[in-house]
């Protein structure tokens, strides 16, 4: 059956197989390292990476660990738990994708994100100018109410920031303009708990919120969070 049926002491060397396996593994790893940097491959890279790592896993287990051709009891002890582990990773990973915000401000990094990335909502210039004018004239009164109900749990009532960044300093992660605030509110921020609010608020509410957030700058806050992002003057 296998080479193990030789009587002890007459083991053949597998050095050649090990050298070939080792070199192959190194080559596959080198390919894996290059793949993420080839723009044209972005759509298939994640699948290729999964495929290549499965080959590497199989090679190490079958050849280096000698499980292939070894006694079935060893395979029985190892392979089913490994299947359970892989299932756990796949299932929890899939659950995470469902809760993950694949869009928002900030450039998409992962190929999966690029594929899923919807166009971002932007307000036209005249709409923004209108919002500025109305805000400066004190046209929005419900900004504070909306903010306290929807934003204060992360950014605090005084804008000092808690889990989310502070608004009282002149530091901004996604730009200092009213247009930037509207964009963050509408699109959310990729990979964070800042979700999109465009379904929840109408245009007037978005304007009111963006203006209220903007108005925090320079105001006092108790124990404000340190500067995050870029400082604007």
């Amino acid at each position: 059956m296998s080479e193990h049926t030789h009587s002890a002491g007459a083991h053949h060397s597998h050095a050649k197989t090990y050298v070939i396996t080792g070199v192959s593994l190194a080559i596959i790893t080198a390919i894996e390292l290059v793949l993420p940097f080839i723009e044209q491959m972005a759509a298939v890279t994640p699948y290729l990476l999964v495929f290549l790592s499965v080959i590497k896993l199989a090679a190490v287990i079958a050849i280096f660990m000698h499980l292939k051709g070894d006694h079935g009891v060893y395979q029985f002890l190892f392979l089913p738990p490994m299947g359970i582990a892989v299932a756990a990773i796949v299932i929890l990973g899939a659950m995470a994708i469902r809760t993950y915000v694949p869009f928002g401000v900030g450039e998409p990094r992962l190929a999966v994100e690029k594929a899923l990335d919807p166009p971002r909502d932007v307000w036209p210039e005249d709409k923004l100018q209108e919002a500025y004018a109305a805000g400066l004239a004190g046209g929005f009164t419900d900004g504070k109410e909306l903010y306290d109900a929807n934003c204060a749990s992360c950014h605090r009532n005084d804008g000092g920031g808690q889990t989310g960044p502070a608004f009282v300093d002149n530091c901004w992660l996604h730009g200092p303009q009213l247009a930037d605030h509207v964009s963050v509110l509408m699109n959310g921020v990729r990979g964070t708990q800042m979700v999109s609010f465009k379904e929840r608020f109408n245009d007037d509410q978005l304007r009111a919120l963006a203006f209220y957030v903007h108005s925090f700058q320079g105001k006092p806050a108790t124990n404000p969070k340190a500067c995050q992002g870029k400082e604007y003057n």
Partner: protein
Amino acid sequence: MADAALPHDHHDAHGHDDHGHGHLVENNFLGLPNLKLAMWAFLGSECMFFGSLIAVYFFYHGLSIDGPLPADVFSVTVTSISTFVLLASSFTMAMAVDNMKTGKVQAAKLFLLSTAFLGLIFVGFQVYEFQHFWLDKGLALQTSLFASSFYVMTGTHGTHVTVGIIWLLMVWSFIHRGKIKAGNYLPVEVAGLYWHFVDIVWIIIFTFVYLLEF
């Protein structure tokens, strides 16, 4: 089940004269060495252990409220070097077992030392990575879901590598002092199984945790 169908790779050839290590090659009712059987069972449980750590990392991926995020801290250079180092160590480990099996004890000892040395380099890279993330990038264990799940997952792996290094050095020392004799390759083979397992865990972490972020 006929006995003849079983691989007798640990046949009575070593007899029971190997000075206190006779228990290592004692066969159980399956005709398989207990030590190797136990190691495979242990590795099965380790699969589920690491499986849950990696699954938790993925589950929390993208849910961190505050940075630094993976893309802000990961370095492709550092990770690829340490990955190649660990890969090379798997090769030297396989060669150590092979040489022990074919009776080339001196070569086996040299490959064991090389494996431990490569493992040490890997751990060194991880220590560098952790202190760089923590002190330079401000990513402490409690910073975010990413930080906690990342440190616990890779830290557990690094601990396994460290345990592996100590184990390999012990095996080397046992061979050196004649406590493991030529022909008794089981202790080397079993240490090798553990070492290769630690390598396959890194194959998964390297691909899915690091490479997908670049």
